[in-house]
């Protein structure tokens, strides 16, 4: 077993894909660094914190990207995001079987915030172009920094999201909310509350995530292969019908749980008899329980 959480972006992508199949575009030797960080005396990385390239996953041709949480928490800047946009466009040009995005990011890099913000919307549009071309997009979340900010939105533009229970998916980070609204609004040091609110299990129960796996790269690989197999039988492009279903799902979620303030209350509402036990369950036991109660449908 090899921990996804502890692995670097390159280790994750190499072990996720078929052995020896990954080849990287614009690798560190090509020196695509941020032109903006140096100006503000911040360190740069030769890959600007993201690994992109092509490979295969159980024989299917895929394009894949992995954000490196060890560099500025995976925060996105101009070059970093442009690499993602380029990869998505190349996926369309080469008509690959799927795109797999290993996201780990705190959001937009403040040193180049404007570029990051615009570019995140470029990623959204490029990702939806990939889906429109008939190619499914998967997002994997299991790094220590979670998937936050604009990339948390990007994740939910994909066909499927796979998370470990350690993975976190949200928009504004707990620290940001605590700074804005005080510790009564969100106590960012209450790690258990942070996980209940943003972690893989809660996202799975709500229907924002398609699979919860153990913190093991092989488990992510198996779940990604399953998802590609499943999505190969569906049309990945957005449709009015799907978005109308998503609208109803999100309205129902709001009306059912909008008055709740604690995730465990939502789990109890879903019919889970002992919600306080949920954080203790391993991925398999959790999935067995959750599948009898979870809500929502993935668009």
């Amino acid at each position, binding site marked *: 077993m090899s921990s996804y959480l502890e692995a670097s972006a390159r280790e994750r992508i*190499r072990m996720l894909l078929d052995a020896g199949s*990954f*080849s990287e*575009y*614009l*690798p560190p030797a*090509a020196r*695509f660094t941020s032109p*903006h960080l140096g100006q*503000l*005396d911040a360190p740069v990385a030769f890959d600007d914190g993201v*690994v992109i390239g*092509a490979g295969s996953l159980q024989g299917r041709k895929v394009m894949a990207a992995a954000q490196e949480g060890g560099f500025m928490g995976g925060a996105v800047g*101009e*070059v970093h995001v*442009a*690499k993602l*946009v*380029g*990869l998505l466009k*190349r996926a369309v040009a080469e008509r690959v079987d799927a795109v797999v995005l290993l996201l780990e990011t705190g959001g*937009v890099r*403040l*040193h180049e*915030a*404007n*570029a990051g*913000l*615009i570019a*995140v*919307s470029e990623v*959204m*549009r490029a990702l*939806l172009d990939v889906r*429109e071309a008939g190619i499914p997009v998967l997002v994997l979340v299991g790094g220590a920094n979670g998937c936050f*900010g604009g990339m948390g*939105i*990007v*994740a*939910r*533009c994909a066909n499927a999201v796979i998370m470990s229970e350690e993975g976190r*998916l*949200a928009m*504004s980070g707990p620290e940001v*909310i605590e700074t804005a*609204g005080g510790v009564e609004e*969100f106590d960012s040091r209450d790690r258990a509350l942070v996980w209940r*609110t943003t972690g893989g299990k809660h996202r799975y129960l709500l229907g*924002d995530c398609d699979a919860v796996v153990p913190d093991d790269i092989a488990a992510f690989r198996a779940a990604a292969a399953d998802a590609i197999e499943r999505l190969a039988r569906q049309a990945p492009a*957005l*449709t*009015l019908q799907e*978005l109308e279903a998503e*609208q109803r799902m*999100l309205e129902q*979620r*709001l009306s059912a749980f*909008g008055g*709740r303030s604690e995730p465990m209350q939502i789990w109890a509402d879903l019919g889970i008899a002992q919600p306080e036990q949920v954080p203790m369950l391993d991925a398999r036991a959790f999935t067995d329980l959750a599948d009898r109660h979870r809500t929502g449908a993935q*668009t």
Partner: protein
Amino acid sequence: MNWQELASQLFPGGHDIQEQDHFLSGTARVGEQTVAVIGTTDHTPIGIEIALAQAQAVLAVVREHPRRSIVILVDTQGQRLRHRDEMLGINSYMAHLGKCIDLARRRGHRVIGLVYDQALSGGFITSGLMADACYALPQATIRVMGLPAMARITKVPEERLVELAKDNPVFAPGARNYLAMGGVEAIWDGDLAAQLEQALTQATPQDRRAELGAERGGRKWSQQVVQAVLAESHARAA
């Protein structure tokens, strides 16, 4: 500018836009055509309710009025910063709104965004920035974070940030910086109605923002990096 004043300048041919809990929706006349209008006002934070309301309005236009153009009026202080919104998956609500706008474009609706007051971060990514083209009024504020807060977090003195911001539009707030980077197509001054009509005529579904950013010199790298990824033929083993 308040939204009523804005609407009367944008739509001299008349409109029936209504405001409900800071959410704007209705229709308006632009030249010979009827357009759908959605938006927000009073710098309202975008929480899950108002994201859903906007998405619902976009879906209704797609369903009931094929090819009708959509104008998005942007005024928001950003995504709502609440534990409850995060617990319910605000990123999914935002993504849903973005996907609805994207679907509208793919089905032949022209979509124009206009920042008439404030635009910040998450509230902007899935509204104005998902349009075919986004415009701004000269007094509009567009930002991720102000320079004082940025100075605290990056530990770069504020005076230095102010100095650097003169030549580099990449981090400082302001509609002109977003114009230089291609995120804003143009800044409107004078006859707003005429400029909107022209924008609707010119709108194209291709995302040309990286190209514009390179042409205008405000975002020199994006387009170049995208092209480099597309062109790289000798991918190396990692």
